[in-house]
């Protein structure tokens, strides 16, 4: 039997913050100072060149919407790229995510699978897009492939984390009836993680619409192609119009997707 400590023995003051916290703050500020040089930080230039900036900013107004039909068409293509990139990624992320979950897969499965997903995630969509353009040529399909690979890596990790946080008891309840491993997953695991999975997938769709709008800069189709052309031609009024279309579309999609997420959970 452990003896119960009396109130007198316990200090009323919280224990003092350890040396660790002080050290961590010190390191943090050292890193900030060290990065100043590398990042070529010149805050005063912002003030010095403020007149230039003002002239530059004025060129964006009023936005030039003469070609709005083309912009809108390309924006729709951008959304199409995001839809297919995300859907293919979800399909692949389900098995890859289940195989990366510590509580489902043996170590010799989940470790290699996680490393593979890390690799997919570590490389930016733009890089994948440039590579796929070499393989399948310029255009939206290269963008779809780029989003697919990168998003699979992201969603597989998120899906696996959701699986690792489940309540194991219902799964054991299913196991107790003599069900096999796949049935355990389908009846015990998936129902528990489904709302989170849906939510993550929609988030990724939103973020893929944003990514797809710049994929065109490297030639992978969509509104990015237009954006790249108008910026390169110093057509700032048109650039403003394209940016407004992107902002409005992305905001709309975020709103709709937030609604779907609420409704799905």
């Amino acid at each position, binding site marked *: 039997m452990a003896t119960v400590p009396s109130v007198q023995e316990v200090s009323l003051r919280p224990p003092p913050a350890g040396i660790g916290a002080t050290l961590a703050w010190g390191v943090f500020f050292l890193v900030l100072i060290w990065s100043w040089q590398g990042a070529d930080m010149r805050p005063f230039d912002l003030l010095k060149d403020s007149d230039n900036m003002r002239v530059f900013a004025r060129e964006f107004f009023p936005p030039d919407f003469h070609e709005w039909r083309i912009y809108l068409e390309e924006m729709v293509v951008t959304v199409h790229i995001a839809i297919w990139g995300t859907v293919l990624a979800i399909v692949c992320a389900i098995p890859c995510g289940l195989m990366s979950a510590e509580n489902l897969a043996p170590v010799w499965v989940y470790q290699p699978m996680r490393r593979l997903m890390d690799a997919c995630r570590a490389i930016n969509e733009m890089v994948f897009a440039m590579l796929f353009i070499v393989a399948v040529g310029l255009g939206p399909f290269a963008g779809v492939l780029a989003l697919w690979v990168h998003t699979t890596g992201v969603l597989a990790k998120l899906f696996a984390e959701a699986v690792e946080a489940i309540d194991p*008891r*219902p799964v*054991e*309840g*299913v*196991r*107790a*009836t*003599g*069900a*096999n491993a*796949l*049935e355990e997953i*389908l*009846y*015990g695991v998936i*129902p*528990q993680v*489904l*709302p989170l999975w849906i939510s993550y997938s929609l988030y990724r769709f939103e973020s893929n619409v944003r990514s797809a709008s710049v994929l065109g800069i490297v030639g992978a189709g969509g509104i990015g192609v237009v954006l790249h052309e108008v910026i390169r031609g110093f057509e700032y009024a048109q650039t403003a119009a394209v940016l407004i279309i992107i902002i409005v579309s992305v905001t709309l999609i975020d709103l709709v997707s937030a609604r779907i997420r609420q409704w799905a959970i």
Partner: protein
Amino acid sequence: MMNSQPTPPAIEIRRLGKTFPSCKALDDVNLTVATGEMVALIGASGSGKSTLLRHIAGFVAADAGEIAVLDRVVQQDGSIAPDIRALRAQIGFVFQQFNLVNRLPVVTNVLVGLLYRVPVWRSLLMRFTVSERQRALEALAAVGIEKFAWQRAATLSGGQQQRAALARCLVQEAKVILADEPIASLDPESARNVMELLAQMNRERGCTVVVSLHQVEFAIKYCRRTVALHRGRVVYDGPSAALTPQLLGELYGADAEELFGMMLDSPALKIPADKGMAPLLAA
């Protein structure tokens, strides 16, 4: 009556031992449960009840000893039988925390009891035939909650969820039911209801039932035989009627209070020790 072929015991446990890093959870447990018996398993919390039941269902491998259920090996010398799934299909397991899948409808939770029998391609598509669904609904009706069939399990009260778990055992046509503190999280009314259902399944369907309980009064009321565990050892195996406060005091010392709580104050339950059969004091 002729009894040329004696029926094998429903559960046979020999020299079972299990040590966790923190403690000895099961210590040389020997236990035989005949077909059709309803046995209570009592013991203070931490005495090893859950651990024992989980070994019988083959969820955990023991360090030593062997377990057979329905004359088939569950585990032997620390390795679980490779065909354990076939055996689990015949064992109904009822958990304290219900262990239903909250987001699935009650009827799907019950249909899970059929998974072993349904062809895999159909179970992976989550398709069940009309007659299978009919069976699930009949089982739900038998435990009195058929009108909640299409609600999510999470929307049911504790007592209703536990009845759904019993309905799952019914569609499973389990020959052996292991219930791990099935009434510990329930109000008294639901607790009685669940114990009545277990007793009914034992009486009318011939299910062998092992039910672990925290309170002795339920053991006395519903089970003729009680097995008492204390720190992983079987310290009593005999008629429940002989479990007097005095005997429990002897078996459990200070822990006894946890087991019979209200029993101490209720004179109706004070059975003189000499009236019951002589208890088989193990250890």
